[in-house]
């Protein structure tokens, strides 16, 4: 399993969703096949809603975990 980490802390809205979608689109086949997952570190509260809602609409799954300095959003295959 390969993990792609992206850290979007401190950036302006809507960097979180835009950069996540860019990464996901670049690697969508690998994520869909279950070889790769994307882990987003963000301190944007809004992104903890918009990322899961958007990627689930695209057929992926996600989890959100709170950490000391922000949130971790994990995006992975539906299967």
């Amino acid at each position, binding site marked *: 399993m390969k993990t792609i980490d992206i850290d979007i802390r401190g950036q*302006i*809205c*809507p960097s979180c969703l*835009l950069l996540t979608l860019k990464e996901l689109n670049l690697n969508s086949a690998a994520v869909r096949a279950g070889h790769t997952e994307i882990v987003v570190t963000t301190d944007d509260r*809004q992104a*903890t*809603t*918009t990322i899961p809602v*958007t990627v689930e609409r695209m057929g992926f799954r996600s989890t959100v975990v709170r950490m000391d300095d922000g949130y971790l959003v994990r995006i992975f295959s539906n299967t």
Partner: protein
Amino acid sequence: MEQGYLLIIATSLAIGLIAGFVMHRADFCTTASFRDLFLFRDFFLMRQMILLIVVSMVLFEFGRLSGLISLYPFPLLGAPSLANIVGGFIFGIGMVLAGGCVVGSLFKMGAGSLASAAAFLGMLAGSAYYAEIHPQWSAFAKSTRLAKEAITLPQWLNLSPGALLLPLAAAGSLWLMREFRAGRMQRPAFALGHLAPWRAAVILALLGFASYVLIGMPMGITTSYSKLGAGIESLVAAGHVSNLEYFSLQPLNYTPPFSDQAIQGGPGPGLDAIAAIQFPLIIGIVAGAMVSAVRVGEWRLQWRIPRRQLLSALTGGLLIGLAARMAPSCNVWHLWGGMPILALQSLFFVAGLIPGTWVGARLLTRFVIR
């Protein structure tokens, strides 16, 4: 200090504190509600904005009919002109580039965002710069003025406010009820202490109503950005500031509710009615958001921002500051205050804001976030 001012200052501060807290918890962002229509075809936040407007429409009309609201339409509104549309257009570009509007940047700054602080500084500079072009701009506004005698759409159509507002509010309510039932007004949220945006919309409408009843007008803050900007500018160029016509204007001249004395205020430096109404609101929003962020353990200085985005925030802030004086006023004043009574200036402002947001979204994805 006289009693009237005390009530105004205390009310504004309290409203600001609650609004800042609520907006931070719900991530209630006006900019996103327009921007995400174009960027992600996402109507979720726009539905919340419509809810806020419909609830305010009902509350303001109830206030007018019951006599709780005596100043109608509220002060500082005027005849519509092309200036409102152009102002709205530039405002739309600015708010997308800044990552938040005037109020949005305040609550994000309160939560520790340095990008929003840069946008705030840009707004002060843009608002002060407007004074340089005011003579030309106000001539343009005057020459493109429409409907000289009418401030609201019902006035322009020669209707009583209720004849238009009540059917519109009823239709809006029916539509919103359908959206609620279909589950489109809520979505899962994982942020700690999250407040559902629809609840925030209702609270913000109630705050706008409280402001209208107690102060005599809904929430607005941008005139005081000129005042702050002019105050800072006069530290280095006092002579120039005192020569500018714009800073000597006193557009606000009214007798607040619960007072028998008229008070005045304008965009120039100095503590007047504008300062009493708007400074406590600004301080309240920043402090309310800060308290909210601290309480969920999420307050931290967000300083690791890409240079390109910092520049975008600053530029967006400049455009917002300038546009808020050209329009005049900001999106919150027009959307949460003017739209609920169908003020013509506000309808024009929104007509410019929508294409402006589209242009801003194009610029953002092309040059800023890549």
